[in-house]
């Protein structure tokens, strides 16, 4: 009782963050949907103003529920908060939120279930980072939180000094009294905790902004340039042991038998034990663990899916047949009639399985005692990690702490938690000892939940120099089925839009327009890869559209603009990228050509133009121009980084990368066989963000989808050669 009363008094101050869509997130005291997760942890003299801000004597801490995989999520959240709270962003500390419903990602729910995201968010609270959703989700919430905190701190100062709050100002972490006296926020925390929070705060007009929309410094840039940024893999603590796991590369298959007699004797090896689908080595050094793991003879059971790529392609081919498995349709006009009335142009496209392969391999550090479970790891899904830990160890959720650490890349990889579960299994067998488990690069490649391979068939007609009919069939595995079954035990009862995402949702007005998805049976387990379904559907759609435009004898930029005439925001994006490139046409002669592609994904209309030149040594990608409609560019420097980084990521995979399966696992198990782009191949890239729309959007993913088709289309313009299968290097040399 005593404790509850203390907490209630100390934490009287709670921000009310009203949010569009009618869901109140942090008005938890009276009519709260979700409890404030910070309360239990508050010490004397600290005040939790909202789930997002903690203020004490040492300053302001942003409790950020969104993980930073490298996309700058911590930084932009800090600036969103600082813009209203009047603090120095570079002095704001960042801490990760522990799993809590108040941190639910409503914007991601919106992406999965358009128009009903808040419902999905409430039914299935996911503290999840993904879908380029951090900025849209936090844009209003964090500024409101900052403003509520600022006004409440002013009230506290007013109370202490018998003044009216409207006579007070705030600046750089202080409330300024009319006398000029400055009071640090930290000194007001305790008083602020005892008064009612200020509600109905008015957000500042963008014209008053000091940080947002300007060139700002990423809050982590100094640490990341001086080797002082710690990642999950850098965890250290007293008594730590170092582990690795070798699991069946036929993912889901078991262990028939293993012989660890040699490995057990190796230096530094503490213990060798079976874990789910594999064997773990615990040692006193990661390298010794790797070496011992390699020395174990393991006989695997077969994997639960076809063992070779050849068999998998046959399955896709078999399922690319019109019929009852069609899961989603875009149907405008009368496609069947149009196809009968003209010469049909037909083409098939193939994209391979791809690995995420972030440079920091999967790892986790876990300490389990009888009282609690502590997990330190880079993860996009702390909520699921906590649930799975509860299931495995039998602890109560309140005693399971997930400490989310900065990640050395992810690209969707850390939306899965197999590596954490393995570490939990090891640590649970040696309670009291902290265990850091690291995968080798080879384990990481062979145990990725990959981007699905996909096959498409386009059929279409042209008439009077225009595209008349466009009919695209796409066959692909369901990401939702594979991923949600792993995470939740079952897939949500909604259609898997990722099969056609980026294909059936494009704003083109083609007179006869049909896009159909076919769900292939499950094969290798798949998951979300940067830009998800749009990563391959952008390629299918924009390559085939390019073929039709060429057959019509039209200009690839102008015909796209004409077909997008009913969507003015898209027209502006294409016009802008055309202007940036000084567009005069796509076939420039002398082996030089330009390709265009446009994809709407994650709410962002994105167009790219790529210029290549064909030389004796091969294709050189010289220039890339990109334009995207994002509503507002909040952080121009990071916008450029995400957009151009997405283009480099996409080009590298389109040119050089594929996973081909033999014996249940990919032959490519390290970077030499999966190179991506290297610096010498990197073109000059110019990008621009347009602000004509009224929706704020994130740029982590939308730069990816148009790059591969723009490149393939440019190669066609330069060489006359249509390449319809990725990776492109199999058909043409690159310098």
């Amino acid at each position, binding site marked *: 009782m005593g404790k509850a009363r203390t907490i209630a008094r100390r934490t009287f101050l709670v921000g009310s963050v009203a949010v569009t869509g009618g869901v109140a997130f942090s008005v938890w005291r009276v009519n709260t949907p979700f409890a404030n997760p910070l309360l239990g942890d508050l010490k004397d003299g600290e005040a939790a103003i909202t789930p997002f801000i903690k203020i004490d004597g040492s300053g302001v801490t942003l409790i950020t529920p969104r993980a930073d995989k490298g996309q700058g999520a911590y930084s932009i959240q800090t600036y969103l908060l600082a813009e209203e709270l009047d603090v120095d962003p570079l002095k704001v500390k960042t801490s990760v939120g522990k799993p809590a419903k108040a941190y639910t990602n409503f914007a991601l729910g919106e992406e999965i279930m358009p128009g009903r995201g808040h419902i999905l968010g409430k039914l299935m609270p996911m503290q999840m980072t993904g879908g380029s959703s951090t900025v849209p989700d936090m844009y209003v919430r964090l500024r409101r939180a900052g403003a509520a905190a600022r006004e409440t701190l002013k009230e506290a100062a007013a109370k202490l000094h018998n003044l009216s709050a409207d006579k007070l100002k705030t600046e750089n972490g202080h409330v300024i009294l009319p006398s000029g006296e400055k009071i640090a926020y930290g000194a007001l925390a305790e008083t602020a905790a005892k008064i009612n929070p200020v509600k109905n705060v008015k957000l500042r007009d963008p014209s008053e902004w000091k940080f947002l929309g300007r060139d700002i410094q990423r809050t982590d840039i100094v640490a990341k340039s001086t080797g002082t940024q710690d*990642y999950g893999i850098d965890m250290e603590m007293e008594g730590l042991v170092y582990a690795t796991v070798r699991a069946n590369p036929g993912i889901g298959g078991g262990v028939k038998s293993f012989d660890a007699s040699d490995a057990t004797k190796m230096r530094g090896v503490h213990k060798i034990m079976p874990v789910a689908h594999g064997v773990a080595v615990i040692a006193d050094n990661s390298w010794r663990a790797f070496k011992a793991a390699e020395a174990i003879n393991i006989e695997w059971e077969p994997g639960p899916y076809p063992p070779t790529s050849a068999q998998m392609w046959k399955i896709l081919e078999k399922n690319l047949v019109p019929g009852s498995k069609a899961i989603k349709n875009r149907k405008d006009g009368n496609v069947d009639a149009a196809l009968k009335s003209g010469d049909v142009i037909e083409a098939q496209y193939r994209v391979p399985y791809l690995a995420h392969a972030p440079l920091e391999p999967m790892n986790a550090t876990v300490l389990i005692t009888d009282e609690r479970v502590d997990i330190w790891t880079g993860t996009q899904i702390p909520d699921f990690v906590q649930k799975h830990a509860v299931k495995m160890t039998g602890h109560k959720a309140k005693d399971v702490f997930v400490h989310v650490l900065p990640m050395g890349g992810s690209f969707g990889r850390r939306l899965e938690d197999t590596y954490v579960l393995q570490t939990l299994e090891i640590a649970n067998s040696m309670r009291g000892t902290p265990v850091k488990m690291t995968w080798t690069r080879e384990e990481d490649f062979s145990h990725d939940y990959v981007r699905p391979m996909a096959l498409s068939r386009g059929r279409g007609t042209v008439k009077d120099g225009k595209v008349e009919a466009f009919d695209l069939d796409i066959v692909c595995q369901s990401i939702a089925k594979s991923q949600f079954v792993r995470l939740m035990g079952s897939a949500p009862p909604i259609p898997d839009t990722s099969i056609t995402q980026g294909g059936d949702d494009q704003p083109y007005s083609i007179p006869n327009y049909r896009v159909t998805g076919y769900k292939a049976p499950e094969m290798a387990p798949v998951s979300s890869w940067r830009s998800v379904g749009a990563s391959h559907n952008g390629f299918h759609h924009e390559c085939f559209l390019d073929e039709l435009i060429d057959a019509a004898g039209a200009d690839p930029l102008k015909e796209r603009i004409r077909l997008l005439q009913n969507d003015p925001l898209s027209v502006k994006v294409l016009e802008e990228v055309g202007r940036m490139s000084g567009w005069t046409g796509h076939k420039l002669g002398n082996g030089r050509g330009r390709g265009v592609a446009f994809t709407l994904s994650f709410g962002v209309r994105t167009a790219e133009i790529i210029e290549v030149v064909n030389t004796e040594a091969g294709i050189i990608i010289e220039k890339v121009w990109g334009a995207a409609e994002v509503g507002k560019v909040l952080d121009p420097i990071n916008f450029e980084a995400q957009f151009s980084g997405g283009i480099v990521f996409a080009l590298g995979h389109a040119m050089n990368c594929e996973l081909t399966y033999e014996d249940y696992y990919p032959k490519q198990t390290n970077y030499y066989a999966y190179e991506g*782009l290297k*610096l010498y191949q990197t073109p000059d890239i110019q990008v621009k963000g347009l602000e004509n729309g009224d929706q704020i959007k994130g740029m982590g993913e939308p730069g990816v989808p148009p790059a591969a088709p723009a490149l393939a289309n440019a190669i066609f313009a330069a060489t006359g050669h249509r390449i319809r299968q990725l990776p492109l290097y199999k058909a043409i040399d690159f310098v």
Partner: protein
Amino acid sequence: MTKLIVNGIERTLDVEEDMPLLWALRDELKIHGPKYGCGIAFCGACTVHIDGEAVRSCQMPVGDVDGEITTIEGLGSPEAPHAVQAAWIEHQVAQCGYCQAGQIMQAASFLRQNSDPDDAAIDDAMSANLCRCGTYPRIRAAVKTAAKKLGGS
């Protein structure tokens, strides 16, 4: 017992001669700037200097180290960054940042040998360091800025 001089400090380790320097630094000496990326000297995340020259520490056996080791921590600090680090900060190169210690060590070693590089020389020197986030355009720009600073000093 193996003796190593790391960032100017002599350290004594009881490890196998064939333990890669990377794992001696990371797990024995708790120096975490050099990163594990591929383990086969392909990605460059583990790059350190031995007597000023860039070396892939994941493929350098501790027993073969013949010289003074500098890691990113010894190159400069947040308060007093090396010219290459300062250029990396100025251009805001890092996204996830995991490869950047290796990129910076590679660039610092390269610029010591070639203080006035042209674009082709930069491309050659920096193309064996992998960045999965795609920061290459800014790496190029930062190397140029650092070259100017170092050349002018």
